[in-house]
Structures are given as structure tokens and as C-alpha cells.
């Protein structure tokens, strides 16, 4: 462990040296005005309320992002970014088919630091809104029961982006970025009172109580982005 910490200053020094040697390349063209991304978000959902809907604790979502740089100051820049993540899981609970659809929208500021023109690090804290739709096929009642809820939270993450394709100088041609980030997404719990849609199933059905569901957990997101 001590050796691992000793490597960190050395790595930082090497990166600064590289930065110094390439500073001649102009930075501004590499600070994207707008950036669109497409990727995958993998979350670790440890909450027991997730168990009826998934054999494992992972939740994979397609992730679409959009960002625009608002301020620039030398290597630092401030952008507004937003993501829409969508994923679904299906499983069975004691023989009853279950499914869970999750939409997650997060919007907020992102602080970027260009260590190199083609490499920047970033961190963001994004207020998040999620809509989940859980369902279970109730074989005894012969009806599908649902629990649909909004929940709110915050995504905090840090990551890095590397420009894998783009001109060295100021050009409006698109630049292709590979982005990876990791963080923690917090979302509040929502009740899993599973009820059929109105008019469906037996008269006066009582809800099936599956507890509550929190989709909070650590996550990783990898994306490919196009920036201008």
C-alpha cells in the first residue's frame, strides 16, 4: 500500500511533464462547445427491494448525454451536462414474472480540467429524477400489478475524457471522445405497493406489499461522445 501511494506523485509529475511538452498545441479547440454522448451505465443496486426484479445486483442502462461548455478559463472549463439513462430488468419472484423499467434524468454543472488538450478530467454533481415502473404477474389474481413512482436524488461522479479523434488545430470538424466516469447515484426509496390498474383483476384488490425500492448505488458509465 505504501508503494502504491509513492507512485501517485510520480504519475502526477509525469503527466505534468507531458502537459508541459505539449502546451504548444492550442487548448481551446479541444474544449468542446457542445458534446453529445451515447454509452452504458452500470449500477450496483444493493437494496433488497431490487431482489424481486433481478437475479443480481446490477442494473444496466443505456445512457444518452448532452453537454455545453459555459465558461472557459485556461485549462478549466465549466459545462452544463445532462443524461437520460434507461434500463429494464426482468426476473421472477417465486414463480411470478416480474419486471422493472427505470428512466433516470440528471442535469447539472460539470467542472473540467484539461491536463492535455486531448485529455480532461471532470467532476459533476447532478440532481437526478427517476421514474420506475415495477410490475409482477399475479397468477392467483390473474392480473398484472404495478408500482409506478418518481424518486429524486443526486448523482456525484468523477471521470476522464480522452479525445480519440480530432484535428490538432482549431477546426469545427467533430471530435470523438471516449469518456469514463465513476460515482455514486443516490435516489430515495419508493414503496412497492403493487396494485392492478383500475378496473383490472378482482374487485377491491388489496395491494401486494413488496416493501420499498431504492435504486441508489455506485455506478460506472462509459460513453463515446461527439464534440464540436
Amino acid at each position, binding site marked *: 500500500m505504501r508503494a502504491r501511494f509513492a507512485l501517485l506523485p510520480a504519475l502526477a509529475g509525469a503527466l505534468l511533464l507531458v502537459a508541459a511538452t505539449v502546451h504548444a498545441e492550442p487548448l481551446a479547440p479541444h474544449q468542446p462547445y457542445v458534446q453529445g454522448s451515447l454509452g452504458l451505465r452500470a449500477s450496483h443496486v444493493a437494496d433488497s427491494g431490487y*431482489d424481486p426484479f433481478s*437475479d*443480481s445486483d*446490477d442494473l444496466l442502462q443505456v445512457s444518452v448525454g448532452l453537454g455545453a461548455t459555459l465558461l472557459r478559463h485556461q485549462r478549466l472549463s465549466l459545462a452544463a451536462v445532462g443524461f437520460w439513462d434507461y434500463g429494464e430488468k426482468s426476473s421472477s419472484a417465486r414463480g*411470478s414474472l416480474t419486471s422493472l423499467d427505470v428512466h433516470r434524468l440528471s442535469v447539472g454543472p460539470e467542472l473540467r480540467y484539461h491536463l492535455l488538450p486531448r485529455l480532461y478530467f471532470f467532476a459533476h454533481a447532478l440532481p437526478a429524477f427517476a421514474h420506475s415502473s415495477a410490475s409482477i404477474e399475479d397468477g392467483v389474481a390473474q392480473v398484472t400489478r404495478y408500482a409506478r413512482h418518481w424518486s429524486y436524488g443526486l448523482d456525484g461522479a468523477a471521470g476522464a475524457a480522452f479525445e480519440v479523434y480530432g484535428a490538432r488545430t482549431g477546426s469545427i470538424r467533430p471530435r470523438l471522445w471516449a469518456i469514463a466516469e465513476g460515482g455514486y447515484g443516490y435516489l430515495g426509496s419508493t414503496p412497492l405497493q403493487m396494485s392492478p390498474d383500475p378496473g383490472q383483476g*378482482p374487485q377491491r384488490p388489496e395491494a401486494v406489499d413488496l416493501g420499498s425500492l431504492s435504486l441508489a448505488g455506485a455506478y*460506472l458509465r462509459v460513453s463515446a461522445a461527439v464534440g464540436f
Partner: protein
Amino acid sequence: MCSALALGCGGRPSSWDTAFTPAKGQDGLAPAYGLTASVAVLDTQLGRVTMLGSPSALRLESHSVALGTDLAAARVSADRKTLFALSRGVQPQRSPDDERPQLLLIDGQSTLQAARSYTLTEPMNQLVLDPQNEWAVVYGSAGVVVNLNELVLVNLAQAGSEALSFKTLLSFGGSPKRFTFTAPLAVPGGQPRRFLIVERDSDLVLIDLSQPDREAVTVPLPSTDAGTTASSAQVVYDADTASIAVRVTGTTSVFMLQLAAPALDGQEYSVVTNLVDVGGLPAAIDFVHNTQGLRLVALVGSSAVLVDPDTATTQAVQMPAAFTGIRRITNELNPAAMPVADGDVALLYGPNITKIAYFNLSGAPGALFRSIEPYEIGVSVKNVIDVPGEAYFDHKILETPNQQFYVLDLHTRESAPMKTSGALTLEVAPDGQRVWAYNPGQPGFASVDFAKLHPVSLIAERQVSQVFDIEGASGQRTAVALHLAQGTTLGIGATVLDALSPSTANARFYSGLELGGLP
């Protein structure tokens, strides 16, 4: 993906992947048990029972109680307040922490939680409960070497290992078949004491429950009239005289046992036996009192043979039909429970006779032929069901082999026939106010209130597996019609109604109860 991104994927408890399957009535396990204030639904795949209680009108709450690994038997106490669950535990044992065999008691009256457990040393398969809720017997071990005649007597008034008495019955061959817990028998020379009578292939064993560790008394049964080995078919007793009678297969004689004062040093009591020929193969026996004292009644063909236990003299009374069942109803007709002075009254019935009869033993011995009053009811009776409680203790439900049942008022001697549209299962409410009738697998069920004898037919929205009548937390009566299967789909659902005013117009439907309480 998640492993590539170094996220721990994790799993979920295997219980989510374990489908619910109701018990099928085999191996001594029923799908569900009705208790006074709850319904217990076995969930053997998860080793638990789902307890359903009613906190308020039309409300149903569920929670699960762990039963122990490998459930062997479950029984409800006679007062319907406690569920007994016998489990084998982890077998074979591989670790000191492996769960041991146990007898678990679950309170079905108030807490709906496990109230007590008794740890056993060996796995057992069979469970018998004392109607007075003082004792339980477990037996039928399942080890590599099995002692067929080992009983574990559990004194339910005690806790822990002190409650257990391990008893091996001396055997002339055979194993326990049936058990009878007696009331306190007035054995001469001692305090009244309760006995456990164990019927085996060719003998009886008497266990003094006041001293369960003392050696039991084994009494061989007489041979059949053909000289072959006989077995017991019925055991009855009279507590006041400490008399026991046994109906033995293949013989026209009734085997009488009298518990008497000790005859030898070291004895607590002695057993005096006698064989009394009743002139034919008896179909049923019971002790009754007539104006001259205690008599044993044996139903032999079209005769009721009265046997004087003291003198072994017999008196035959012609019956209007060959009744094969007898039930004393004296207490039902005598609510003050006064000592019998004039004689008992018994109800006679049979599964092949479309009559019932009242056998009044208060008449003069010479006029007993006039003491049997037959009533033509048009259907035969296979079983007589008691009505609990104080309001309608003088009612009996006559269960017939076909799609009818009768509600019989013993005082007025009026019977109310109830015809159903399908096979019939009856569930008498524990408060003794009504009976529920249903046909498992069909959506229809009905309630018959004893006050008005008015049937209320109900059609549930799903197939009904069983119907129970429980007391809610606020004192209300709640009917629970269980739905455990819809075609091939299995789960725990219920239609919940007001038992006092049942109507599907305001019933509530519950399902997914098998999903509650999973880790």
C-alpha cells in the same frame, strides 16, 4: 459488463427462486390450518408458515414464522389456539450448529408468533396431541436404526428438556397405531390420573401420565374367534369407574379392562381383564349410564347389547335398523352438566341407513325396546360433527356421504337438510355460530347461520381451496376463503369477508401473500 467494470454484481436470496407449492395433504401436512384468530398456511419449500390474521374488519395481515428444517407433521391443538409443527432438522448433522429436530408451538390466538419449542435428540415423523392440551407425543423415528416403540412424551406444562420423557414400550411385536388420552380415571387406591392408551397391532399399552417415567403396562389383546391374531378397532373408557373397553377385530367378544387397586407390592394399580360375548361382531361400542348404572353398549347388527361391566351380563335391545355409529348426547341435552341420574341419551346413526335414532337409557330396563326413537331423514350419516361454544352446543351437524348435510337440533329433534351442488367440505366456526360449506377447487361456498338456518351462498372471484372463520383483533368475525391455486398457478390469496354478514359485494381480495417476509 458489471464484472468488466469492477462492480460487484451480487445475487439475491434463493427464496425468490423458490416457487410456492401448497402441501397436498400427504405426510400429515395440510395446505392450511384454521386457528381461533388466524389461518396458518404452510410454505414448506421455505420452511415457514404464513400466519394470516385480521387486525380490523375486512383487513388481513400476514407474517411468516420459521418452522424449522424438513417439516414432518403439523397439528392444531383441540382448542385451536396453537399450531404444533414437528421438524426433522438438518439431517445428517455435519456441524454442532446444525439445526436439531424440534417441536415448535406457534400461538395462533394472539401474537401469531412462535411461543415455545422443544428440541429433540432424534428426528421423528409422527405427532399426536392431547385433546386437553397437556401432552404431545412424537414417535416414528427415521434414523439408521429405528425403535418403532419409542415414544417421546412432551409435557406441555413444562419447558426445555425437562418436559421430555423418552419411553420405549415393551413389545410382543407391532408398533403404535392409535393413541387415546383419557380424562382422569378414578383408579381405586389413588388419586384420579390420566392415562395414555396406545393401540398396537396385538396389544394395548397403558401409560400413567401422572408418572410417565414409570414402566408402562402392556395388555395383550385376545385372539379372534378363528384363533388368529386380533387387533383393536376402538377404545372407549369411563372415567368414574376407571373402566376401559376395546372392540377387537374378528371376535364377537368385547375386551373389558378394569383398573383396580394394586394387587402386588410396587404396583400403582392393577388391571383386571374380562371378555364379554355380545353375540355378534360389534360395529361400535361406548359406555353409557342407565337407571341401573354403567353399561357398555355394543351395536351388533340390529341390536344394541348392554353389558354390565361388573357382572358381564348382557341385555339385547332391538333397534329399528342396523345402526353402526353411536354418540352420547347427554351433555348437549343437559347444559347444566349435572351428574347423570336417570340415564344417558345417545344418537344412533350409520352410513348405510337413512335413519337416525335417539336412544334414551332413562327408561325401565324392561322397557328399553321403547327407548329407541327412530327418525327417517332420507339420507345416511357418515359422521356427526360437534358444534363448539355455548350458543348451539345442542346442535349436531350430520355429514352425509353425498352432497348434503343436516343441522340437527337435539332439543327439538328437528333437522334442517342442506343440499349442495357439489362435493362437500364443512368447516364449523370456532365460535359455534355457523358452519361454512365449500367444494375445494370451485369458487362457490356458503355460510349457514345456526340461529336462522339461513344459507348464504357466495361466489368468489377465484377458486376456493379452503374456508376459515377467525376472530379478528377487534373481536370481529372474519371469513377467509383461501385461494392457493388457479389452474397451474400457485400462490397464497384470499377473499376476506365479514363472517357475520357475508357478502361478496364488499369482500376484499388479497394475493401475493407468499411473497411477504422474504429476506
